[in-house]
């Protein structure tokens, strides 16, 4: 287990360094930042001074190393628009996104797992058809479109729920459900197929023959063995949720990092977009590591391979 942990953490470090390298490369592609930072009437001397101030007159490799070491101490550049360090701006918006993503995940797990189990148990009945219908639509609906439809129905027409902002718990409901729909479809599909797989195994037939009560078979022998693929998929979904949040936050004017990133793109505030991408990636990598460790604990085969 210890070697597994060490190998897995090393992978996270490599991943984050790799992502930073990509971001650094893109930053260089973006060209000379002084064009955005200085007024058009600035002189050449002013421009060169700013370049020196930003450390952009140094050789590329030195810039790269200092980009990495600065990031390690929490300094990932200056937002051009706000003219202050980008990281605190991102961190300030981060809790709202985490709240949205975790609520969406909670909604999708709480609806998808029971529905998936039910669909597996009542295979080829209307429950199964209903569940797979939801799965097909949930996977094919663009998240921001479902958001607009929900606003149209629950805010504009029925006036039950607010369509924007983050005041109070009611404002969380629509964005969280919208964001969770796609994930719900995926989790339900895997729950169904994984349960069907396990319930068809010989050992399930054996415990059933022994006269063990059906709910014990379902939860102790069924769900526990079906859990690994479900947990693994849930971990992977977080990346999609954080990405989907970019769109959902824009639709619902939710004050998280997604909306921050979109607005930063509009104002060409490159370092700020980059900081959001970096923070989200780090979060996603860490969560995935924990999920992998959890799976390794659930299933010894994984850590032995």
């Amino acid at each position, binding site marked *: 287990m210890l070697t597994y942990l060490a190998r897995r953490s090393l*992978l996270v470090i*490599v*991943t984050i360094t*790799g*992502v930073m390298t*990509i*971001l650094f490369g*893109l*930053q260089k*592609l*973006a060209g000379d930042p002084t064009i955005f930072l200085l007024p058009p009437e600035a002189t050449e001397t002013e421009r060169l001074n700013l370049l020196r101030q930003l450390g952009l007159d140094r050789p590329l490799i030195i810039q790269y190393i200092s980009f990495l070491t600065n990031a390690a101490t929490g300094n990932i550049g200056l937002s051009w628009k706000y003219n202050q360090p980008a990281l605190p701006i991102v961190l300030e918006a981060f809790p709202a996104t985490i709240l949205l993503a975790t609520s969406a995940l909670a909604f999708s797990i709480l609806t998808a797992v029971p529905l998936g189990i039910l669909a597996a148990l009542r295979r080829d009945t209307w429950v199964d058809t209903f569940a797979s219908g939801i799965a*097909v*639509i949930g*996977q*094919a*609906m*663009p*998240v*921001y*479109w479902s958001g*607009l*439809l929900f*606003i*149209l129905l629950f805010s*504009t027409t029925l006036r039950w729920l607010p369509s924007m902002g983050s005041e109070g718990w009611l404002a969380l409901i629509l964005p969280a459900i919208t964001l969770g729909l796609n994930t719900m479809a995926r989790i339900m599909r*895997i729950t169904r197929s994984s349960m069907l797989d396990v319930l068809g195994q010989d050992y399930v037939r054996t415990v059933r023959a022994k006269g063990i009560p059906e709910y014990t078979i379902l939860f102790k022998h069924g769900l526990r063995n079906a859990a690994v693929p479900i947990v693994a998929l849930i971990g992977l979904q977080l*990346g*999609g949720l*954080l*990405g*989907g949040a*970019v*769109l959902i936050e*824009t*639709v619902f004017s939710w004050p998280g990092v997604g909306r921050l*990133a*979109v607005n*930063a*793109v*509009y104002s*060409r*505030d*490159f370092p700020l*977009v*980059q900081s*959001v*991408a970096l923070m*989200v*990636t780090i979060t*996603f*990598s860490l969560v*995935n590591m924990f999920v992998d460790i959890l799976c390794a604990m659930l299933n010894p085969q994984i850590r032995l391979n």
Partner: protein
Amino acid sequence: MSKKGLVGFGILFLVIVAAITAPWISPFDPNAQDIINSLAAPLAEGSEGGIHLLGTDRLGQDVMSRIIYGTRVSLTVAFGAVGVSALIGIPLGLAAGFMNRTIESLVLVATDIVLSIPFILLALVLMSVLGASLTNLIIAFAVVRWAQFARVTYSLSLELREKEYVLSCKAAGISLPRTLAVHVLPNMVGPLMVVATLELAYAILMESGLSFLGLGAPPETPSWGGMLQEGRNELDTAWWLTAAPGIAIMATAIGYNFVGDWIRDRLDPRLQGVLR
């Protein structure tokens, strides 16, 4: 053919036919403005004759015609993005599976890295650098999604490289590129087609999402995502501006998914673990 497969192929056939014949089947010029008929409801009559089947937008442009022309952006971006991803990902996946250990680890770590960045965020970063355009959308997609093709190709390679006919190619002194092209790749076509259809569905959702943010197709090009963005401002008064493009996107995505499911069902069921 299963019912699902028929529906899937049917939808895609319609979309492709619409894209090719757009100039002839569109009831109006997609960019013709009819200001008197601004925000006309579905089935309203145009000021110069003709029926606006799906209504008009704020500028009085016919929604039906814009939906039909929108298939062009949707198909171009989806097939462009997935094609480029496959062209990069499949060779890299083969290299990882059939060449030495160093290349194997390099490719696998690289896939881990790019797949750990949520696609839409990387696209935002790229768009802020390169500017918004359809070509850049395709580039943004390929930069990340090659990894999906590489991964599947690699896991298929692991199985195929132990097969007798592949080993005997080596024994017979057939070169590696020839072995891969003639004996390995043809045996991967089915599973890779499934990946491609899933990626196509993903690509059109992402394309419309970025267009919705105003970072995809330029405003004068009719695109479904762009129409949704405009419709958002009229949500209270003109529901058809939101409903029509959304249904178009969803139906197309369902089409790709169904075709993918159909191909998967036709394949060896043992491959399902690799292709989830």
